[in-house]
């Protein structure tokens, strides 16, 4: 089933970490397996923030293979070595869990080459790269993940999130949403639905040099949009193309450094409730997500079939 939520403050910042946690916790019944956040934080914008994992969370109902923690340290050393070879400088590093890190780095070359080099280390996956994007995903509900990564303190302009019920792929971090729009900085995607032409699209995109890290059909949306943008399309143009390029039922959100978008398939088979005002747009799979941050009486609506909308901060 899965639940998705997103919000964007226009013209101001807010405590988006806490707000998104409330929205996703309200949708816990739609997806108890894992929760993910893509928060666009008030960073100074000087350096890239890279979040990556060197292993999986093997607790809490995970389907991943248990590994000795010592291998995590070895992989981390290899990542550091590769960063050095790439000419990147680590400005700040934080170990968030035994299997995940947040690095602040100085780097000014091609991100695709960068990502390929970093991810050449076994089991290492870049969760996100960006100057404002902070992408966090792990097993557990919204509060569990938020507490683990101290997300309730994150100030920013917008964010998207996902409460996942694992269906066609495993209960693990690599299959959890959001997905980073590799190789674009600050692009993230969450999705509720099923894509039926996943393998056809995946093969075609892999032949064009795009990378997939999981077998989760939702990852296709991020890669699909990234490939369109790589060829010069705007975010909105890419999203409109996805309505025909992707087959199946879906509602998805995509966020960039300064915008938030939604798209709904032509069957309108997946739910979405939307609230829009001059200074705030909030949306989610169910009204209760919006009500968790806006308890006062407001007017909401369901976008129609085939609708694509993009808002700027």
């Amino acid at each position, binding site marked *: 089933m899965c639940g998705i939520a997103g919000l964007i403050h226009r013209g101001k910042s807010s405590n988006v970490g806490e707000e998104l946690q409330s929205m996703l916790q309200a949708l816990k019944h739609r997806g108890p397996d894992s929760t993910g956040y893509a928060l666009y934080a008030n960073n100074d914008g000087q350096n890239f923030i890279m979040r990556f994992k060197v292993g999986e969370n093997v607790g809490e109902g995970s389907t991943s293979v248990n590994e000795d923690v010592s291998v995590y340290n070895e992989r981390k050393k290899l990542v550091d070595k590769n960063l050095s070879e790439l000419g990147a400088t680590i400005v700040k590093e934080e170990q968030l869990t035994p299997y995940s890190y947040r690095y602040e780095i100085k780097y000014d070359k091609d991100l695709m080459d960068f990502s390929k080099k970093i991810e050449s280390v076994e089991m290492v996956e870049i969760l996100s790269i960006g100057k404002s994007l902070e992408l966090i995903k792990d097993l557990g509900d919204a509060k569990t993940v938020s507490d683990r990564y101290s997300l309730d303190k994150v100030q920013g302009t917008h964010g998207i999130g996902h409460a996942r019920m694992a269906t066609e792929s495993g209960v693990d971090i690599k299959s959890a949403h959001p997905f980073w729009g590799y190789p674009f900085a600050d692009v993230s995607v969450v999705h509720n639905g099923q894509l039926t032409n996943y393998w056809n699209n995946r093969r075609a995109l892999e032949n064009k040099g795009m990378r997939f890290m999981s077998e989760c059909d939702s990852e296709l949306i991020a890669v699909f949009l990234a490939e369109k943008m790589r060829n010069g399309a705007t975010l909105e143009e890419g999203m409109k193309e996805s309505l025909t390029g992707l087959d199946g039922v879906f509602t998805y959100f995509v966020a960039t450094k300064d915008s938030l978008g939604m798209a709904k398939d*032509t*069957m*309108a*088979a997946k*739910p979405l*409730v939307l609230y829009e005002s001059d200074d705030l747009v909030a949306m989610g799979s*169910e*009204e*209760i997500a*919006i*009500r968790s941050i806006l*308890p006062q*009486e407001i*007017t*909401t*609506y*369901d976008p*129609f*079939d*085939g609708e694509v909308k993009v808002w700027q901060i």
Partner: protein
Amino acid sequence: MANLKTTEKKTKAQSMGMHTEVLTGKTQQKFFNPDEGENFFYWGTHDVDFNKRTELDVKDLDCKEANKKIDMLMSEGFGTIVIKNPQGKHSLGVGILNKLNLIFEGSLGYFGVGSIDGPIVRVNGRVGWSCAENMMAGKVVIEKNAGSCFGAAIRGGDLICKGSVGARTGIDQKGGSIIVGGDAGAFTGFMMQRGRIVILGDVGINLGDSMYDGTIYVGGKIGSFGSDAVESPMTKNDIDWLKRKLKVAEIGENFDVSKMTKIVAGKKLWNYDALEPTEKKGAI
């Protein structure tokens, strides 16, 4: 045998292309002696006094607790209940099988007021997916917008949304009327079998897809017709009925119903028995 409507009314219904739609009021009456219809009550329902009014704040209640409280208030004879702070909770006000004035001061989540038979409901907000699913009788008025599957499988009553509704409105509808003041999404009237849908605004693609019977009236633009949905000429009966219904629905009072488009089943896919069990017995 069930008390079917008079020949005159049958003719009227036939002229509107709704010759199978002859059931009114509580559908259950058809399974009992119609003379006892007025005195018929479901087991576990309550005899309430509309002048006895109360309020219930459901802010800190889950849907089960809230519905139990509503039932308890009805058992105490309250006939007008105002629900405060519904805040998009799911499945509120479901399964009410007696007369009642139920007012929601706010918005409902999914499956609001489903499987009801008799109450008059007003929602001063929005409703989520599948509002009034399986409704048998009564009247439900939504002041703002509604989600998808609005009035799924309803068998009777009037379901009114003053705003816009999502996709698959009236899916599998088996009777009653759905009236929408705004626009409607794709697959409106999908597989409907009886009843009427009135959309004053535009509708999305695949309108009336695979409909078996029933009638859809559209005031605005139509995205596309679904499989086996065809346009039919408006008659005087259609216009009279629409005027009366829109007045009851408190919307579109000045709307020129004569310019609406009427859609019915082409019946090329028609392969089902349109009779209710009691009608079938009568026919045999």
